[in-house]
């Protein structure tokens, strides 16, 4: 197993739908190379994809980070605004402020944050309007 923590960071641009999903793809590749179980990789892929898409769709830009330890996968996202006014509301299944244009592309189903929470063993989201949003999740690998 890994002895040390491996850390990676991925900058994410706002509104760039062509590159959207690339960071999640890179994270997945790293976990595959690390030989993690398929079930863990799938959960991480869902979380990374949804976190990345939220930065692309809803924020002015930010980044995603991955920290791999011997016992768990840690991921965090941060962006530079606009922040979420009501987090409880944002966490509700089906709630979305995405525009009609973005919805027509199949985004904005309001399933992102619920899917992230469902697939995480530890989930923490903090947001300040005018400042930004921070998300922190852990996925236990299931081996020690």
């Amino acid at each position, binding site marked *: 197993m890994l002895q040390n923590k491996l850390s990676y960071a991925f900058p994410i641009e706002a509104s760039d739908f062509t590159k*959207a*999903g690339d960071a999640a*793809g890179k994270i*997945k590749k790293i976990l595959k190379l690390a030989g993690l179980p398929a079930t863990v990789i799938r959960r991480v892929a869902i979380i990374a994809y*949804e976190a990345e*898409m939220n930065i692309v769709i809803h924020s002015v830009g930010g980044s995603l980070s991955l920290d791999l330890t011997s016992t768990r996968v840690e991921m965090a996202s941060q962006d530079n605004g606009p922040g979420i006014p009501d987090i409880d509301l944002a966490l509700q299944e089906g709630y979305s402020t995405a525009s009609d244009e973005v919805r027509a592309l*199949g985004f904005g*189903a309001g*399933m992102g944050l619920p899917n992230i929470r469902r697939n995480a063993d530890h989930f923490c989201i903090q947001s300040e309007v005018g400042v930004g949003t921070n998300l922190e999740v852990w996925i236990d690998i299931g081996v020690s």
Partner: protein
Amino acid sequence: MKISEIEELLELEPLNKPQGTDPNVAGGYASDLLSDVMGKAMADTVWITIQAHPNIVAVAVLVELSAIILANGVKPDQKTLEKAKEQDVIIYGSNKSAFTLAGELYKAGVLGVRKQE
């Protein structure tokens, strides 16, 4: 069933078909919501959709889908094809509707499967 058999049976038009690959197909999923596919579709299945933008390739890679089938004669964006080539994602097109494609797949024994919570 192999994707090549499905291509023949449903008379699909190959839009991106990497050389030397003929993945197995263990089932299918139909949806136009990316989060839904990301959360529910299973690896080694075909995905029927009318979304044609580059993000479908990212989803196909993340879920490890066997192939994407674009229904209703929808044509992929140029960027979508470029991304699919880069990442070896198989994309087919068809003039048939999602309903008809799913029906034909079902008849051929390719059933709907989805991830259980």
